C-alpha cells in the first residue's frame, strides 16, 4: 500500500482545558412532582371515584350499602394473588401466563391429597405449595437456563398444568376440604374476609420490596435493560429465575386459599382467571407509577374493575356489557396513560 502522503507532525498548541471547578447549577432534588404528574398518577383513581359516584347516583339505595362494599372488595381474593404472581415476572421483563394453571393444579392437589388420599391437612397444604413453587421454578429453568421464549414456555406450561390438574382430579370438581380450613380465609376481620386482608398484606409487601429495597430497584433495572443490570454486577439470571419461582409460589398459594374458600376445587375454573389478572396488571401500569408494573396500581386496578362489574350488575346490566367494560376500560386507561406520558417525554 502506498503511503505517499507524509503527514506533517502536528505539535499541539496548549489549549484551554475545562476548569476543574467550573460553577455548575446545583443538582436539583430528584422527584419533584408537578400537577401534571399527579394527574397522570391518579387519573384512574379519580375515574374510579367518579364511576362509584355515578353508580351511587344511578342506584343510591343499592350501591351505597355495606353489602355492595363487601361484594366489591371481598369477591376477588384469589385475583389479587394471581395479579401479584403475574407481576413479578413482568417486573424483570419476563412473562408468565401459567399462573392460573399453577393455581388450578395446587387447588386440586391440596383437595385431592386431603380428601381422596387421606393426607393430613398441613402435609397436603405444604405439598401443594411445593407443587406451585416447582412449577414456577420449572418455568424459570426453561426460560432462564435453557433460554426459551417465556411467552411460549408459559403458555404451553399453562395448558400442560391444566391437563395435569384435570388428571389429578379425575376431570371433575373435587371437594372434601373441612369447613374449619375454610375459616382460614372466610373469617371476617373488620367486616372483610381474611382472604381480602391476605391480598392487602401481599400487595403491600410486594410494593415495599419493589419500591423501597435495593432488590426492587435491581428488578426494575433487569426489566428495563438486562445488559445494563448485568454489567452493574446484578445477578440477572438469579433474579429472573427468582421471579418465576415467586410467581409459581404465589399462584400456588392462591390455589390453596381458593380451595379452602370453597371447600374444593373445579379444575376447569382456573383458566378463566388468567385474563382478568392480566387485565388488572396491565391496567395497573396506568396507575400511581405510569408506565411501570407496580403492585399498588395493580391492586387498585383489580377493585376498579370489580367496582365497574358489580355496579353494572346492580343496575341489572349483565352479560355482554361487562366484557365491553372490562376490555374497554383497559384499553382506554392504558391509552390515556401512554398519551400523557408521551407528552411528558416531549418536553
Amino acid at each position, binding site marked *: 500500500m502506498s503511503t505517499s502522503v507524509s503527514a506533517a507532525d502536528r505539535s*499541539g498548541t496548549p489549549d484551554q482545558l475545562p476548569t476543574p471547578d467550573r460553577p455548575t447549577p446545583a443538582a436539583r432534588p430528584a422527584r419533584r412532582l408537578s400537577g401534571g404528574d399527579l394527574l397522570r398518577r391518579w387519573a384512574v383513581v379519580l375515574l374510579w371515584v367518579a364511576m362509584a359516584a355515578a353508580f351511587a347516583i344511578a342506584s343510591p339505595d343499592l350501591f351505597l350499602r355495606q353489602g355492595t362494599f363487601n361484594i366489591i372488595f371481598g369477591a376477588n381474593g384469589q385475583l389479587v394473588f394471581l395479579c401479584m404472581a403475574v407481576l413479578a415476572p413482568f417486573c424483570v421483563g419476563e412473562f408468565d401466563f401459567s399462573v392460573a394453571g399453577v393455581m388450578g393444579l395446587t387447588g386440586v392437589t391440596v383437595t385431592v391429597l386431603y380428601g381422596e388420599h387421606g393426607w393430613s391437612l398441613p402435609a397436603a397444604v405444604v405439598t401443594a405449595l411445593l407443587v406451585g413453587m416447582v412449577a414456577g421454578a420449572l418455568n424459570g429453568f426453561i426460560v432462564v437456563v435453557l433460554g426459551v421464549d417465556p411467552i411460549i414456555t408459559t403458555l404451553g406450561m399453562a395448558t400442560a398444568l391444566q391437563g395435569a390438574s384435570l388428571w389429578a382430579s379425575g376431570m371433575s370438581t373435587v371437594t372434601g376440604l373441612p369447613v374449619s380450613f375454610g375459616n382460614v380465609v372466610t373469617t371476617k376481620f373488620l367486616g372483610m374476609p381474611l382472604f381480602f386482608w391476605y391480598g392487602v398484606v401481599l400487595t403491600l409487601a410486594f410494593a415495599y420490596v419493589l419500591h423501597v429495597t435495593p432488590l426492587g430497584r435491581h428488578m426494575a433495572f433487569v426489566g428495563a435493560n438486562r445488559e445494563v443490570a448485568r454489567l452493574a454486577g446484578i445477578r440477572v439470571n438469579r433474579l429472573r429465575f427468582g421471579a418465576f419461582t415467586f410467581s409459581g409460589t404465589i399462584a400456588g398459594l392462591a390455589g390453596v386459599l381458593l380451595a379452602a374458600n370453597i371447600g374444593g376445587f373445579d379444575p376447569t375454573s382456573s383458566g378463566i382467571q388468567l385474563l382478568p389478572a392480566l387485565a388488572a396488571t396491565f391496567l395497573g401500569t396506568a396507575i400511581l407509577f405510569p408506565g411501570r408494573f407496580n403492585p399498588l396500581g395493580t391492586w387498585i386496578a383489580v377493585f376498579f374493575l370489580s367496582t365497574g362489574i358489580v355496579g353494572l350488575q346492580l343496575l341489572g346490566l349483565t352479560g355482554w356489557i361487562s366484557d365491553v367494560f372490562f376490555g374497554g376500560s383497559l384499553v382506554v386507561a392504558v391509552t390515556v396513560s401512554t398519551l400523557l406520558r408521551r407528552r411528558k417525554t416531549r418536553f
Partner: protein
Amino acid sequence: MPSAPAHRTSGHSPAPVATGTEPTLSLRSVSKRFGPALVLDDVSLELHPGEIHGLVGQNGSGKSTLIKLLSGLHRADAGTVVSRGGEHPLPLSVAQLDALGVAFVHQDLGLVESQTVLDNVRVGRYQRGRFSRAVRRGPEADAVRASLARLRSDIDPLALVASLPPADRALVAIARALQNAGADDDGAGSGVLVFDESTQSLPREVLTGFYATVRELAAAGTAILLVSHQLDEVIALTDRVTVLKDGRVAGAGIPTAQTSRREITRLMLGADADTQALHDAVPTSPGEDGLVLRGVTSPTLHGLDLTVRAGEVVGITGTTGAGHDELPYVLAGVSPGRGAVRVGGTEVQLAGADPRALLDAGVALVPQARAHQGLALVMTAQDNLSLPRLRDRSGRWRVTNGWQRDEFAWVVEHLGVTPPRGDLPVAAFSGGNQQKLLLGKWLVAGPRALVLHEPTQAVDVGARRDILRSVRAAAAAGAAVLVSSIDNEDLATVCDRVLVLEGGVVVGELTGPLTADQVLDAVFRTELTTEGQPA
C-alpha cells in the same frame, strides 16, 4: 485483516477522471438536521460516467444519511440533485429516481429469500397480460435471463433465492438495480448505481468476482457510488474518494491513486480537532501495578499479557479484528474468555467469572454501546448512576436517598451534566450528557481499574473534552485506566502509553507524549509488517 485486494488488480486501469465531461449526477449543498444536531452540512458530490466513486466516513459521519436522502427515505432540509440537464430539489420521488436512472444495492441486498429470482428482480415492474392482468411469466423470465447474462451469469430465473450461493444473490440484487440504473440492452449504462455497504453481507471469497462485476459495470458507462467502511476495498476499487466527517466533506473527490489508506483514515478521524494532550493539565504519577492481565484469551485475543500501573492511562488500539475492541469486555467478565486479571491484590480467573466478580475486584467497565449496555434509558439519571452500589450503600432492606443525591451532585460538578436533574429519565439527556452519566456512574465510586471502550464516540467536542479530562482525573486519583479506542486523537490526548494490538497480542508500544499521527503511524506500520502472514 480482511483479505480484500490490497493492491489494484492488474488490467483495471483507472478511468481518467473526466473533468471535462458532464457529471451523471451531482448532489449540491445537501443539509440535514435531526432535532438540534446538524448531521449533514452543505455536502456536495459529483458522480461521472464510468467512474467508481468511494464514499467513506466514520459511524455518524453522515454517509448513510446522505444515501437515505438520495433514496428519498429522509427529507432533506436543503440541497438539489443535478442530472441530465435538470435540477431537482430533494427529496426525489421513486418515479424521479427511475427517470434519472438512480438505483441502490443495499447492505442486506434486500432480497426475499422465499421467492424466485424472477420475482425478486421484477416485483413492481411486471408486464401484465392486457386483460387477464396475470403476470406474463414467459417473457418475464426471458428478460431476467438476459439481464443476468449481461452480468455473465446463468442463474435460473425460476430458482428460489434461498437456494442460491451468496455470490449469485449479489448478482440478483445488482440485476434488479440495473433495471433502474438505465442499463440499455447493449449493457451500456447511463445511470447511477449506489452500493450501500453491499459487501457487508458477502463472504470474502466471492468479493473478487463482485469487484470484477462492479468494474465491468463502470466500464460500460454507469456511474457507481461505493459506500463502504472497508478502506482496503475503497482503495482497491475506486477512482476517486469523498470523505465525510461530522456531516461535512473532509475530502472531496480525491483521486484514489494520489492518496493512501492512512491519509483517508486521517481525514475520516479528523486532524483538525483539538488534539491538545491533557498530560500537563492533569498530571498523573504512575505507581505500582494496578491492573495486570496474564494470558487473556478469547476469540480474538491470544494469551495477552498487559500491565497498567495505578495512576497510569494506557491506550490499546489496532485494526479491525486485532482484539483491542474485545479486551474491555473480556477483562470485565462480560464476554467469555480465559486468563487471569489481577487488580491490586485481588486476582480473578476469567474462566467462569461473571461481571460481579470483576466488579468486586475493583474493575469498572464503560462500554461502547451506551443504550444497550451502559444505561437503562427509561430509568432516571440518578437511579442509573447509583445502580452498582445500591446494596452496599443502602443495606438490604431500604434504599436510602442521601448518598444517591450526593453521588449525582458529584457527577454534575465534575463532569458538567446538563440539565442537572436526577429525576429525569436518561433518554431525556443529549448523547454527550448520557455519556457523562455513564462515565460518572463508575467514576463516582473511585474504581481501582477503569476500563473504557470508545469513550467519546458520537459525542460533541465540548463533552469530549470533559470526558477525557475526567478519565485523566480518575488516573490522577490513583486508578489504573485502560482505554480501548480506534480514535487516535483520543488516545494521544489521554494516554501515557499506547499499546498496538495485532492478532490478539501486543505488537507495538508507544510512550507519551504522543501525537495522533504517531498513533496512526504505529497502527499502520504494524499492519504493513504483518501483512501477508497467516492469521
